[in-house]
């Protein structure tokens, strides 16, 4: 007990990774407290998986430092207290589900007397109890992802990394995973959730960081990030130059007939409508709403590009 016990689940300082001339991650500094569900968002290739692999010691940082549960990354002892579901999940097809989990209990390593209960609990949590004795090679991708989640849960880890944990799951499976994540947080486990499924992150995460081109471009609690209003307008009759002039109303997600102004003060809606009409457009519907994470995400990426 002491410093390590009180330390945050994850703490990084200027973590940077380059592959030759390519910058995969630059200057990542963040702190994830114990028991928090932390969402790590970003488009494909933004550096999310690289960050997870750096934290797990699968990649070596080019510069910077990081600590997991108070210990420097790469520390073998700390890995006993960590669970990991990789984005590229694959398990031994020639073993059955119970044997895969026994293998992870053995490598964790857990006391053999606890294996049976740990395996049964993990299988039950992910809904694979009735397939426990089937070969993994007979599993669908979704079932293999559930198995991967079960493997990440054995040993009651204090920190769990989930890299795109619902990429192969149907809506029911996604709902189940959200419940599992909330359950982990309730028992004090910190969850680092890597995802580009924004609605999923919005529903479960306490805090998020948005990463793009290897750089964190925003971070904070949901309330801090989603403070603005988005306005969706259904229009016709606007040509490209008119649409360009609407950029004065902030970041715009242009989907043809539907324009979404991802951050627009509600007081500016009448001005927006009159401008559209003045530009020759016809307005059929105006619907202001609270900004969603997707609105904010697109806004951030738009700002980043410009």
């Amino acid at each position, binding site marked *: 007990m002491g410093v390590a016990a009180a330390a945050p689940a994850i703490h990084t300082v200027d973590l940077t990774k380059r*592959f030759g001339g390519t910058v995969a991650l630059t200057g990542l500094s963040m702190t994830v407290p114990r028991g928090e569900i932390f969402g790590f968002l970003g488009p494909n290739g933004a550096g999310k998986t690289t960050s997870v*692999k750096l934290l*797990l*010691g*699968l*990649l*070596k940082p080019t510069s910077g430092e990081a600590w997991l549960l108070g210990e420097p990354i790469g520390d*073998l*002892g700390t*890995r*006993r207290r*960590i669970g*990991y*579901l*990789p*984005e*590229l*999940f*694959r*398990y*031994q097809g*020639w*073993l059955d589900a119970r044997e895969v989990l026994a*293998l*992870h209990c*053995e*490598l*964790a*390593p857990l006391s053999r007397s606890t294996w049976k209960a740990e395996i049964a609990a993990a299988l039950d949590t992910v809904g694979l109890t009735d397939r426990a004795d089937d070969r993994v090679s007979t599993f669908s991708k979704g079932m293999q992802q559930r198995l*991967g989640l079960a*493997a*990440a849960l054995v040993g009651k880890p204090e920190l769990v*990394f989930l890299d795109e944990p619902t990429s192969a799951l149907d809506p029911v499976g996604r709902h189940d995973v959200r419940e599992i994540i909330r359950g982990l947080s309730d028992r004090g486990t910190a969850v680092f959730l890597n995802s580009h499924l924004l609605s999923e992150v919005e529903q479960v995460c306490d805090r998020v960081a948005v990463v793009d081109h290897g750089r964190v471009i925003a971070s904070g609690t949901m309330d801090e990030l989603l403070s603005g209003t988005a306005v969706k307008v259904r229009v016709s009759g606007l040509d490209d130059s008119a649409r360009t002039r609407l950029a004065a109303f902030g970041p715009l997600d242009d989907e043809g007939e539907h324009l979404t102004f991802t951050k627009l003060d509600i007081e500016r809606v009448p001005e927006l409508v009159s401008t559209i009409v003045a530009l020759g457009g016809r307005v059929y519907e105006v619907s202001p709403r609270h900004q969603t994470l997707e609105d904010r995400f697109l806004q951030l990426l738009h700002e980043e590009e410009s």
Partner: protein
Amino acid sequence: MPPVFVFARLTVQESSRRRLLLALVILTLLVVGFSAWGFNKITTVTRSDGTLLPHDQVSLITSQLLIVITFMYSGVLALSAAVVAGPLISSEVESGLLLSMLARPVRRSEVVIGKWLGLAILVTIYAAGSALLELTAVNWATGYEPPHPVELVLYVAAEGLALLSLGLVLSTRLSGITGGVIALVAWLMAWIAGVVGDIGTGLQNSALQNVGTISHLLLPTDGLWRGAVYAMEPDVILAALRAAGTAGRANPFSAVDPPPTAFLAWVVVWFGLMLTLSIWSFRTREI
């Protein structure tokens, strides 16, 4: 169980569950059956006067045929070791299979040593088992047994282990197919270089002899094969080869002397180097 033994057990278990072992056992039993039948035929061959071949002559023919059959076994073992070792690590890195296991408190050296150990156990069991079956069949069919059967098994197993070790090094960096092909080509080239060295010995040409010596140092498979051949040569053949002088040494299926102790010591060092290189290569690989 320490992680090294967990990975060794997994490797053996995988070969068993994927029916690699079963396929090898069935093929070996077929070869043993056919060769026993063939060897038995030697004892029924008659000379021009209608009499059976004398026992000494049957033994001589059997000993030379056994060398050829053992060459086939050592080839199967070497090919299998190269094909299995080639993708041993690379395929699990590429598929993502190793990712969740490497996030456990496991050293990469433990993964490398464990996998090598698992395959080494399989290679040794196959070499010993197939040799036991084949030699028993030969003995039953002709009454012949080679002069040094234990050394024979050790040399053949060591040849398989050498290919396994080379395949493992390549597997830490290259794809399974690439590593397997390189290991196979290296094995064939080492054998051909050994033949070139033989020709050098026969012609007393030191440049050609050096080709053989250097190849034995780089990849000791051919040197180990010569050890296996020596373990099978009857004294009569050895005496005849020695009497033939350097010409008697110019043959990839004959060996006049056992491998020098210095070479055997080098083989031990070579295995150590290969494992060290594999560990270093995998440890420094970014996954």
